[in-house]
């Protein structure tokens, strides 16, 4: 057990099969503004290959911030990432990650007597959060940061006209050439399909590719998500009153540029239905490197959490 400022405590938790998953609980020493009985616990997932502390230690800041407000939080490493050893069962990575989020929620439930949870995920963590939220009715809120691309027509034109991308291609950048080769293979149907979550006017075209563990962060969707447009997946959550927050950088990048898509294509094709908020963070890149952008993101999340805490969740 470790005491922290603002009256919070942290402790190591080993959970899952034979305690194989490593996590850290952050929780209030005394009741905070979330009330003596917090409405929910919070789960923070790995972002890409980074271990549980998150990009630029953002997960640690988020965990301690929300614990200081009265919410029990767990940040943990999926199997094969950080301090959690690789999974033993050889099953699909995506399915395993969703089940590990469920185990993290179970750990919070057992320790703090909680029955509802909010999931926070950045980049690939957002996609895991979505899969886990779809999988478990205990999830009452999901915040995905820089997690979902909506490939509308305007988005595709912007990418095609990207000077930076053509520059890399002309310089013979290996990574860009490989991606181009992969894209061409997909067009002629000779290679593994893309695993990006697609949405927008045209139907999703997601198929699963081979799972890979360890050093590669190959994005594979759980079976519940594969082949379905992201707007349909988010609607499933909204229809059961699970609150959704999507946060993006507010820059000029062609990728993950939600505003670009919104302005051109009447957004998200969801029209920001009830229960969903979309936020754009100024001066942010994909991992919220600038500390000012982290502070802004934390404020957005704090306001959203306060809103969630005011809702009459059914148990």
């Amino acid at each position, binding site marked *: 057990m470790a005491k922290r400022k603002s009256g919070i405590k942290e402790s190591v938790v080993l959970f899952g099969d034979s305690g194989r998953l490593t996590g850290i609980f952050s929780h209030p020493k005394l009741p905070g503004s979330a009330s003596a009985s917090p409405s929910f616990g919070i789960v923070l997932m790995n972002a890409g290959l980074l271990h549980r502390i998150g*990009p630029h230690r953002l997960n640690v800041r988020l965990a301690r911030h929300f614990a200081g407000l009265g919410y029990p939080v767990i940040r943990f490493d999926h199997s094969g990432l950080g301090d959690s050893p690789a999974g033993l069962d050889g099953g699909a990575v995506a399915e395993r990650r969703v089940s590990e989020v469920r185990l993290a929620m179970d750990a919070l439930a057992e320790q703090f007597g909680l029955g509802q949870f909010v999931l926070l995920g950045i980049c690939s963590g957002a996609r895991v959060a979505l899969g886990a939220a779809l999988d478990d009715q205990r999830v009452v809120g999901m915040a995905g940061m820089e997690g979902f691309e909506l490939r509308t027509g305007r988005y595709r034109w912007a990418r095609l006209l990207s000077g930076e991308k053509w520059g890399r291609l002309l310089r013979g950048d290996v990574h860009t050439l490989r991606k181009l080769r992969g894209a061409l293979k997909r067009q002629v149907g000779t290679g593994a399909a893309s695993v990006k979550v697609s949405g927008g006017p045209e139907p999703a075209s997601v198929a699963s590719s081979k799972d890979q563990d360890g050093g590669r962060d190959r994005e594979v969707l759980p079976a519940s998500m594969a082949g379905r447009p992201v707007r349909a997946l988010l609607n499933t959550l909204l229809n059961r009153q699970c609150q959704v927050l999507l946060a993006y950088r507010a820059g000029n990048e062609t990728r993950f540029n939600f505003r670009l898509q919104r302005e051109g294509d009447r957004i998200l094709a969801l029209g920001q239905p009830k229960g969903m908020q979309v936020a754009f963070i100024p001066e942010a890149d994909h*991992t919220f490197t*600038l500390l000012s952008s982290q502070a802004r993101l934390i404020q957005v999340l704090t306001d959203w959490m306060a809103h969630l805490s005011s809702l009459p969740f059914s148990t």
Partner: protein
Amino acid sequence: MEPFFFDRGRLFGVYHPPEGKTQATAVLLCYPAGQEYMRVHRGYLNLATQLAREGFPVLRFDWFGTGDSAGELEEASLQRWRSDLRAAMGALRSRSACAHFCLLGCRLGGTLALLHAGQDAGISHLVLWEPVLDGAAYLDALGALHREQAAAYSAGPLAPDEFVGFRFGADFLDGLRALGRDRFGGLGVGMTGEGVGSSGGQGGRPAVLWVHGAGVEPAYDLGKVLKAEAFVALQSDEPAMWLKQSGVDKSLVPARTLRSVVQWLKENQE
């Protein structure tokens, strides 16, 4: 692996118990700072696992203000981190029951290992992987990287104490700017100039393995300043694990170099 908090809960570490017959030397892994810490994490885990498999007790820990340890980086300083290293040595001593210790550090972790070694007679081995020897140059390079990356998404002025997602406090910045080669004297380590696998230290003075990439000269001059007696240089032909990697494979683990480090330590046990 055994994750735990120590030093009154201020610091977080992971202890790797040895497998099979326990070696005489326990190993303390010292992380670098900032983004370099993020990038080497996987490699350090790989190294710790290999060492434990060879019978070495290993502890890797997060400096105050980093990782899962308490505080924020801006509250830290080089002095505070030197104190953290002493605390980590205490934790490793109590868990390993070894009489000899190897400090292994990359970049700023190597710097702190070097500074500590002269004060601790129990340090029998040092593995220094391109330690930071010029703090001002280190900060200049970090600052340039930060400005280059931020230019893609930020038009406003940048805070001078912020470096690619991390903020150093004034004490830390002052300590880094004052860091120069004149700080590293008096270790009394051996120098042979041979390749990997040659002799270790003598009479309790640490043997040094200096790991470096192509184009980066080993600090042989530092060996002279240190009055070194056993100094081995290992050039790694793999990308440095603390640098940003591009391409599809982002495993960030220089496997061959890590195996060579483990081999050197195995072969230099008395």
